[in-house]
């Protein structure tokens, strides 16, 4: 299967990357997983990703800062925010700063796959999430 989407996944909890990476690979995403936001930002500076999935609450650098950096560097990149501390003010701030979507933890891998599929559609690279194959 051809890789269609380059995805950076940032969450300081290792289990999140471990669980989501194979789930996204199944629908044609090449996923780079980071637990340290500084390393993730360095990689974002090097490479233009199609999609960035980032946790919000992390030590030192938070997801909103990651969003701002991505928005400044690559406006076409879709940023999906994930958080266990969802609040209206935070959700609105993320959307205002250009997030593509905002999901509250816990969620099922399929929930994220659906959002990735929406982002892929917006990027003009539709995925077939139902069959687990790239369209």
């Amino acid at each position, binding site marked *: 299967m051809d890789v269609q989407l380059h995805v950076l996944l940032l969450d300081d909890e290792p289990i999140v990357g471990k669980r989501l990476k194979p789930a996204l690979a199944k629908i044609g995403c090449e996923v780079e997983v980071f637990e340290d936001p500084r390393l993730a930002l360095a990689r974002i500076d090097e490479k233009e990703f199609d999609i960035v999935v980032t946790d919000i609450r992390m030590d030192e650098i938070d997801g909103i800062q990651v969003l701002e950096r991505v928005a400044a560097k690559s406006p076409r990149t879709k940023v999906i925010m994930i958080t266990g501390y969802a609040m*209206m003010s935070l*959700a609105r701030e993320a959307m205002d700063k250009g997030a593509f979507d905002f999901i509250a933890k816990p969620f099922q891998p399929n929930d994220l796959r659906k959002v990735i599929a929406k982002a892929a559609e917006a990027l003009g690279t539709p995925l077939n999430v139902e069959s687990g194959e790239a369209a």
Partner: protein
Amino acid sequence: MSLIIISADLYESGRAVAEKAAAKLNYRLIDRELLTEAAAHNEVPEAELKRALAENPSLFGMRARPWRRALAVIQKTVLERLLADDAVCHGLGAHLYVVGVSHALKVRVLADAEKEAAVLAEQERIPADKAMKRLEQRKQLRRRWSRSAFGMDETDPGLYDLVIGLSNIDLDEAVQTICDTASYRKFQPMSWSQKCLADLELAARVRTVLLERFPDLKVSADGGTLVVEVRAMKREKRRKAEAIKEMAGRIAGVEYVEVHVVNDIFRQAAESFR
């Protein structure tokens, strides 16, 4: 696209703003016409739904139980309609129960009281000062209603994203301001806010069913998981919890039901004095 919920200190002013905003954005208008359908689907007289929106329960007026049920039916029907975006909602108390949904822009419209009083004075052929007094009474009644119905004071500006006074800003300007604000990215729907709204809708749907048998309960939902809080005496705790689980478990979208039974201290105290 987002949802716009309009509340007003005087119904007519809110309705005028809501109608114009819906037409300008090409959104659906959800207003009291919905009550006809809500009444038919839930076997509640439409007049009872209208009355529940207008008054508090009282000894000589509407009784508490049908009042609560009527409000639950309205809430359920409105939330169901709001699940599809692109709507302007007015006159159904949605500003008090659509809580924590980031893509719902809540607007409070303050009527031009002098203008409204002049209209009322002409309609009812009463002096202007009397008309003004009546409008003031209506506002006070609304305030009390919001507290009794949903435990919130609807005149609190903190409930809204935008407060517009029609005394100094004319209708078209107010509508333009609302439409401009609704277009901000922060009011766009996202997975989380849509889930929040779906949770509210599920909780309202379950509550409407349970209210038929249990007159006083709270229901919240998170995904398919429900938490139901009900008051009961010690000896009925288990029976009530089982009955709630059984009734709620049959409703579409419910996966798990947790029942929190709170001691009904008033009934317990009343029984101990017998």
